């Protein structure tokens, strides 16, 4: 994975704008992005517990945003999973619109109980 400057990469102390992720069509405003994601989280509660993200490159080297969506155990049940995943993807596409920054969006979904077992900081 390449090194776009995003949430997973600590900003250097050399220049102020090093903490701002640079993508082909401009800068990603982290506050704006975080606010948009929070509003999606709230709108889809209680199915969605939280959404985390990181910026990087996909396998083809294109700048991308990788969303990690933590679902309630109820929402992650097989009979509901497809519908819930679709609604999260659509809501993120509409509200966050990462394509306008020239980013590809990728989504991964986990249930809360799975994360409780794995306890991965990136999903907390």
């Amino acid at each position, binding site marked *: 994975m390449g090194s776009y400057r995003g949430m997973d990469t600590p900003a250097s102390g050399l220049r102020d704008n090093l903490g701002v992720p640079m993508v082909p069509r401009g800068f990603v405003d982290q506050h704006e992005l975080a606010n948009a994601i929070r509003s999606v989280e709230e709108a889809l509660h209680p199915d969605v517990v939280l959404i985390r993200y990181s910026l990087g490159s996909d396998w083809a080297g294109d700048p991308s945003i990788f969303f990690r969506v933590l679902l309630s155990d109820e929402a992650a049940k097989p009979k509901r*999973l*497809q519908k819930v*995943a679709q609604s999260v993807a659509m809501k993120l596409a509409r509200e966050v619109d990462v394509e306008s920054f020239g980013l*590809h969006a990728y*989504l*991964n*979904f986990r249930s809360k109980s*799975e994360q409780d077992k*794995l306890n*991965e900081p990136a999903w907390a």
Partner: protein
Amino acid sequence: MPFPDHLLEQAQHLANREKKRPRQASLRRAVSTAYYAPFHLLIHEATLNWRRVNQRATLARFFEHGKMRAASDKQRAECNRFINSNPPAGPELDCYRHLHSISDAFFQAQQQRHTADYDNSKQWTRTEALTQVTLVQGAFASWRAIRKEPLAQVYLISLLGNPKG
């Protein structure tokens, strides 16, 4: 049942194995197989247009992952533009929605396949694997709904890459 459907069935089987503690090998192979199902479905459908049946397998070898990815990215962007232009409800909008579901699922599945096959640091969960499988199942259903539509057929040709000139 044709080969792509078998792959999808196998992906689902792998994602549901080991009820209590799924093995990473099963989940990763599920995610990988969930990509190869639409990969082979689309190639199979494209080669059906070639009249000489005995040459279809040869023709299938001309499709490339990268070119199919680029075509799918372009296709889903085109679908998004149409869907967001507020068109009237009807068969054309339905067709674009289905085509978006297919091209987006292909695009997503390819990235996930790459991670599943090569990134050993990634811990997969059953929900992550099942999400990929259900995404592809939706794409299969969408393909069945529009496979004879001109838009769908143009998408199939585009999977070969950009025309010259």
